[in-house]
C-alpha cells in the first residue's frame, strides 16, 4: 500500500512539475492573469476609492462578496468548533486546586467551596500542574498591550500598508491566546468571556453584511459604498474608502473572536475551565 501511494505521489508530483514549465514567467505583464482586469484596478483604484493599497481595495471593495463570505466561513468554523467540542460535564478529579501565593503550598479542595478564597492569598491553579513562572507571566503581561495596539494599527492602516481585517484580527486574537498560554485559561476568560467571543464573532459578520444592506437601503447595489456618502457627509470616493474601513472592522472583530473561541474549546476539551 505504501509503495502504491509513493508511486502515485511521485507520478502526480512529476505531472505538476511538468505543468509548471507552461506557466508564464514570474511578473510577466503579458500573462493571462495580468491582462484581464488587473490594469483597470492599477489605473483606477486611486481615483475611484482613494486607497493606495490596491490589494485592500480589491479585497474589500471590488471583490467585497468574496471577503464577506470568507468572514462567514471563519464564523462558521468557530460555530462548528463550539458545537463539536463544547461540553458541560465537569472534569473528573479533585474539585479545585489552590496555590498559596506567599509559600507556594498547594491545597486540594475535595468539594467546590461556597466562596472563592481571596485571590491575593490563594490563587486557583490547573489540575495538570505547571510551574509558576514569574518571568514568562510578567514579560507576556508587558508585551500584550503592544501586540494589541499593533493589531489595531494593522486593521486601521490596511488602506496604506499591507494588512487589514484578517491579519489584524488574528494578531488581536493571538494576544488573548498568549495571555491564556502564559497565565491560564481562566484569566483569559475573565478578559473575554465565552458569551463575548460568540457575540463578537456574530456581530463582526453582521457589521459587514449590515454595511452592504445599508447601501441597498440607500438605493444602490449591495456593498456599493458610494451610496453611503450622504449618510457620512463625504464625497463618493471618500465614502468608498470609509466603507472599506467599516467592513475591515467587522472582519477584524469576527476573526479575533473566532480565533479565541476555537482556541478555548480546543485547549480545554470544550469544558472552558482550564487549558494548556
Amino acid at each position: 500500500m505504501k509503495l502504491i501511494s509513493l508511486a502515485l505521489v511521485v507520478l502526480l508530483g512529476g505531472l505538476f512539475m511538468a505543468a509548471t514549465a507552461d506557466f508564464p514567467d514570474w511578473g510577466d505583464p503579458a500573462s493571462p492573469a495580468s491582462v484581464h482586469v488587473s490594469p483597470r484596478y492599477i489605473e483606477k483604484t486611486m481615483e475611484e476609492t482613494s486607497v493606495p493599497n490596491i490589494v485592500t481595495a480589491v479585497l474589500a471593495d471590488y471583490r467585497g462578496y468574496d471577503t464577506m463570505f470568507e468572514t462567514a466561513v471563519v464564523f462558521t468554523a468557530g460555530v462548528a468548533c463550539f458545537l463539536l467540542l463544547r461540553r458541560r460535564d465537569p472534569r473528573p478529579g479533585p474539585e479545585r486546586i489552590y496555590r498559596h501565593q506567599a509559600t507556594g503550598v498547594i491545597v486540594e479542595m475535595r468539594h467546590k467551596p461556597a466562596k472563592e478564597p481571596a485571590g491575593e492569598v490563594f490563587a486557583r491553579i490547573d489540575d495538570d500542574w505547571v510551574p509558576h513562572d514569574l518571568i514568562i507571566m510578567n514579560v507576556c503581561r508587558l508585551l500584550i498591550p503592544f501586540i494589541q495596539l499593533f493589531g489595531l494599527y494593522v486593521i486601521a492602516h490596511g488602506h496604506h500598508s499591507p494588512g487589514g481585517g484578517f491579519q489584524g484580527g488574528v494578531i488581536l486574537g493571538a494576544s488573548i491566546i498568549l495571555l491564556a498560554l502564559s497565565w491560564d485559561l481562566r484569566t483569559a476568560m475573565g478578559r473575554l468571556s465565552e458569551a463575548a467571543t460568540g457575540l463578537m464573532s456574530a456581530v463582526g459578520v453582521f457589521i459587514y453584511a449590515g454595511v452592504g444592506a445599508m447601501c441597498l437601503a440607500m438605493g444602490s447595489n449591495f456593498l456599493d459604498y458610494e451610496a453611503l456618502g450622504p449618510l457620512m457627509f463625504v464625497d463618493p470616493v471618500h465614502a468608498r474608502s470609509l466603507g472599506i474601513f467599516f467592513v475591515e472592522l467587522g472582519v477584524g472583530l469576527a476573526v479575533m473572536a473566532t480565533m479565541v473561541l476555537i482556541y478555548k474549546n480546543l485547549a480545554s476539551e470544550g469544558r472552558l475551565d482550564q487549558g494548556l
Partner: protein
Amino acid sequence: MIWQIDLAVLVLVVICAIGALAVKDLVGASILFGAYSFLMCILWAVMGAVDVAFTEASVGAGVSTVFFLAAVFRTSRRSKD
C-alpha cells in the same frame, strides 16, 4: 530576487515539509509545519506579495501552530503510522 537566497529557502521548505510528514512526535511535526509556513511567508515576501506574506505569517505560522499544539496536547502525542 537573489537566486542563492531563493534556492536556500526553497530547499528548506522541502526539508520542512518532508520532516513534518516523517516525524513521529506530533509536537515536532507541528513546529516543523510552523517553520514551513514561515519559510513560505519569506517566499511570498520575496515575490512581492506582501499581503499574502503577512497573512501566512499571522495565520499559518502563528495561530494555526498554536491550534495544532492544543489539539495534540488534548489527544495523543505519538502518531500511529
